[in-house]
């Protein structure tokens, strides 16, 4: 089997995640889609590591995970506070950027 397939898969997942971010309004689901994209990247990293026969790719994936973890923590916290103040988790309700 051609290793490129892994990459195809990661690309596909990434795209799906991206589409999700664009389509969904529920902040939590949007967040999940972001996670999905991150994971897609990780898959690519891991695959590359195997392709090139060194572990740097995996290191990268590892760091990605750590960052993702941090991000999720903060992000969810934000969602919660937002929900408290607005009683809604829809990203469209957070349209104050327009002013």
């Amino acid at each position, binding site marked *: *089997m*051609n*290793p*490129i*397939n*892994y*990459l195809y*898969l990661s*690309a*596909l*997942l*990434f*795209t*799906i*995640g*991206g*589409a*999700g971010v*664009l*389509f*969904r*309004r*529920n902040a*939590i*689901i949007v967040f*999940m889609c972001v*996670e*999905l994209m991150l*994971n897609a990247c*990780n*898959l690519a990293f*891991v*695959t590359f*590591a*195997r*392709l090139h*026969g060194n*572990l740097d790719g*995996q*290191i990268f*994936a*590892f*760091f990605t*995970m*750590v960052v993702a*973890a*941090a*991000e999720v*923590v*903060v992000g*969810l*916290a*934000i969602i*919660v*506070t937002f*929900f408290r103040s607005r*009683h809604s*988790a*829809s990203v*469209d309700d957070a349209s104050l950027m327009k002013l």
Partner: protein
Amino acid sequence: MTTSTGEAVEFWLLATVAVLGALGTVAMRKAVHSALSLAGTMIVLAVFYLANGAYFLGVVQIVVYTGAIMMLFLFVVMVVGITAADSLRETIRGQRWLAALVGLGFGVLLIAGLGNASVHAFTGLGQANSGGNVEGLAKLIFTTYVWAFEITGALLITAAVGAMVLTHRERTERAATQRELAERRVREGAQVPPLPAPGVYARHNAVDIPGLLPDGTPAELSVNKTLRSRGQIRDVSGEALEDLKALEQRAEDHAEGKGTEGAANSGAGSGGRGAPSGGTGAEPPNNSATPANGAAR
């Protein structure tokens, strides 16, 4: 190093699952379902990691992601449950088409990009993992990437503190006492007595079945708020209403409409919600539909 047929099979099977999971994440109406399908995808990915010789990552993926992060998600879904299900109706004009276009284009581009990349065989992690995958990673992390590692440490700490700061709420005023709460309720004239219990006057007494009012309509207040907003109210008052109608019918046969008036009035008085009996009698489906509407709202 080429890949074994086994891996191929495994890939094709699990890849399908992964994609389905991803699609589920995007498409599911309820956050819980999205979260679950995402978890599925992640597990599949973990398997792929393992297959790609990233044993440590595979495990971490399961433990950290599927274990910790996804659970965190579920917790939040629980907290924010009220609007956890949102309609997929698009509100921003043109957003959907634009998104579809861009997303599709992006995907196509990625695929195309990969398409003209010439990748034939893995180099394989044979000697990279010779000292064991974890040791290999450890060596790299604590030598080459030690600086980045330290930084991520700092990042995590910051994130933790940040989350705390964000979610922590300083109580500015004294907590209201029982008395004050009661007085307020009276003042606002909102539901002075305790909420009605579910299942009263009903065949079942499960929490998700509303009690029925004297006129047989379900008392929404008797069901837990969250269930209500999730639209998870099971309604069994249909046949009760049928009985009521039959009973009234019989009452009319006996005496003139006065008697029923009085009955209706008394019912209204006890239930605290006036509904002209004729009306209720006339369209029962309407009444039975209300919970659904409430859920949809």
